[in-house]
């Protein structure tokens, strides 16, 4: 019993400390709201992200031979409530990335298809205060095609990712909410087009992050906190997210890009309103800013989405 209680304390700590961010892409994949059985919605979003400054390790730098790297993406997102306590989410982005200077070829294509399940483990009404819920979510994302990952201009790292997370949300009856989440993303090794040579390590300490045609893609912890308002017709939030990569390389000549340890802190805002007179359709907009990071672009993103709430499939 003592042991269990210790575990329990550990979990509490995890929930309170691990303010769980998501990847900006996964921003809507797992939030603290459940659809409810039979309710579905689909969204198409467009986003524009760009940076001219990036971090090599933790040092910020620019490269005149790349200029500004701009990434435009069109994403499909769908969610449905299988039961009142279980949602299934799918998403698929089509991405195009291009550098403004130099001669590197643009990259475009479908990136990673993602499938998530989110379970509302418990929900408690707290009288006039509001409701508290704790959810767990797990998902997998995997590349849809052989897109290029090992280049300065690329649309992803091409790994298959397993993501597990816990989300806790408290929502007041007036509509204000705050949620925290913590997750861990495990990324598979990727195959390279070339036979990459790991640098010599004096003393032979440690094992290389890449070698031959294979590269690790660092796993990462992911924390975020979100606060907002969701009631009636409007939704608005502000969030702060941190991704912390495990062991990996820094960006450098000859080093495969997928093995780079990508970490960042981002913040963003989003809001959503239904279209007047036709409330099944809504419009969303969002923005995000990279505050700091490692081996990542100091990117700013703007996005807009068109959402459609499908008729409940449970009712005839």
């Amino acid at each position: 019993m003592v042991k269990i209680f210790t575990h329990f304390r550990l979990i509490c700590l995890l929930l309170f400390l691990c303010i769980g961010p998501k990847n900006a892409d996964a921003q809507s994949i797992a939030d603290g709201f459940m659809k409810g059985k039979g309710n579905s919605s689909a969204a198409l979003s467009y986003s524009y992200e760009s940076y001219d400054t990036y971090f090599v390790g933790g040092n910020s730098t620019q490269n005149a031979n790349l200029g500004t790297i701009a990434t435009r993406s069109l994403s499909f997102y769908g969610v449905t409530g299988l039961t009142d306590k279980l949602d299934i989410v799918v998403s698929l982005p089509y991405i195009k990335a291009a550098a403004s200077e130099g001669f590197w070829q643009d990259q475009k294509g479908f990136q990673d298809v993602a499938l998530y399940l989110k379970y509302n483990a418990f929900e408690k009404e707290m009288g006039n205060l509001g409701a508290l819920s704790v959810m767990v979510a797990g998902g997998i994302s995997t590349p849809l095609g052989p897109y290029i990952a090992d280049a300065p201009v690329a649309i992803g790292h091409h790994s298959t990712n397993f993501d597990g997370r816990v989300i806790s949300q408290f929502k007041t009856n007036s509509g204000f909410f705050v949620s925290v989440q913590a997750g861990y993303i495990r990324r598979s090794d990727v195959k390279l087009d070339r036979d990459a040579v790991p640098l010599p390590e004096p003393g032979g300490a440690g094992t290389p992050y890449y070698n031959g045609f294979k590269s690790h893609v660092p796993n990462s912890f992911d924390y975020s906190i979100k606060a907002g308002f969701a009631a009636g017709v409007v939704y608005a939030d502000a969030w702060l997210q941190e991704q912390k990569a495990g062991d990996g390389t820094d960006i450098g000549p000859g080093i495969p890009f997928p093995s780079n340890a990508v970490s960042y802190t981002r913040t963003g805002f989003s809001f959503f309103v239904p279209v007047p007179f036709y409330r099944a359709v809504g419009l969303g907009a969002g923005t995000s800013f990279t505050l700091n990071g490692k081996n990542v672009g100091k990117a700013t993103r703007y996005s807009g989405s068109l959402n459609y709430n499908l008729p409940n499939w449970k009712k005839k």
Partner: protein
Amino acid sequence: MRTLYFRQYLACLRSNYLMLLSCSLGILLLSGCEKSDLSGPDYTAAAPSEQDLSGGTWKTILIKSGNEVTVPSPLAPTDPTYQQELSEVKSLQAQLSKTNRSAITYWASGATLRWNEIARQLVAKYNVAPVVGAAPDPSVPFANPVLAARIYALLSVAQYDALVSAWHYKLQFGRPAPSRTDPGIKLLIPASGLSSYPSEDAVIAATSLEILKFIFPKETDYLTQQATQHQESRLWAGANVRSDLAAGESLGKNVAKKVLEYAREDRMNLARDANNTWQQVVVPVKWQSLEIPVRGPMLPLGGKVKTWFDSTALAAGLPGPPPVVGSARFNQDLIEVRKIADTRTREQWRISDFWADGAGTPTPPGHWNQIAEGLIREKGYSEIRTARTLALLNRALMDAAICCWLTKYTYYVPRPSQMDPEIKTATGIPNFPSYTSGHATFSGAAATILGYMFPENSTDLNRQAAEAAISRMYGGIHYRFDNEAGLACGQNIGKVAILWGKGDGSPK
């Protein structure tokens, strides 16, 4: 009020702790999985079936013959000093650690090849263009393809000459391996039948250390550590005694000294064209740097470096002038590159990336050393035949670099993207003129000389050379005429190298 929220929250958590526990465990499990071990490649200890006992008579490259450097006679097996050395081996073997054992196998898998591998890793580490405008720092050499070709050549030539000499003295002295003299010594690697004096491993470790620390002075500690471990591993393995190593080390150092004398005089130190004479050359449409900020071209006087093989025979195979910029042939080949760039397939990108061997890699000569390593391991060559193979290959590769650079800085042909900025690339644009392709020249030379030594692989080697050449068109940075002229020039260099190989006295 706040306390109330918090209490209720805790109450919720408490009532569901089992569920939370299992989910958290799931996440911990996800994070607990280790990444796979990517170290290696691991090879077992080599056991060459043919030890090439005539190796001591083979033609040397920079030393006059196998007996130019003298090696003193070894002590008799009955000598107390030798007996003491045997005891040292026994006491070392009595306390072998796991690290010792893995070092034994690591070095016994092919000493010449292991040092070749170390050289490739160091080239990759130093293959980084310096900051534009920075004063050159000799202790941090820019291991670009030309310099890399020279590093591999110097290393292989030193290893080869030193091993010819070692084989000469091995045959002369015929000291049996310690395990044969003292049954208390266990031989932990396959028996070689070679005389243990002087130790070929000490020869290879010492020559390689001397050459590589001359090139990479900042790596001296790392290299010394490797060389020491290499030598000690032979004691641990029961294959040598201390005096075998000392004689080998001294021989190796002396041969390396002669190779370094050659290196100081080969004119590579002038190749970077400190006075920018390249700027005075006038051609109708001249190559320009496409980098921001503009960077001076790589080693404009690389074509003036001393060649390993007969320079008259090499000159006879130099490419003629390229199609004039703006001519029908030029435009046709330019349009071809543009078309590839506009419709580049994933497979074309893969081929481009596979052969790119750009910054931070062992360069195309390093890639061909790796291909040679695969063939050598397949055949289970002796150390001396391995060194011969690599010395022929790497001299050919360095001469390829010299011939190609001479051509590049005769014609100054612009890269495709300079002529048509809409040509986007799948690889970095090298900062020097286009004609001829370095990749094609290196690959033509390498496939030809390796095809001579591995005739059953000749077809495949030529296929690889052709793919390496066309990879540069797939990448968007070379014209077809660059590749055709480069391959032909490289093949000629390969043929000149074959002539040397045919006359070096090694049995086929």
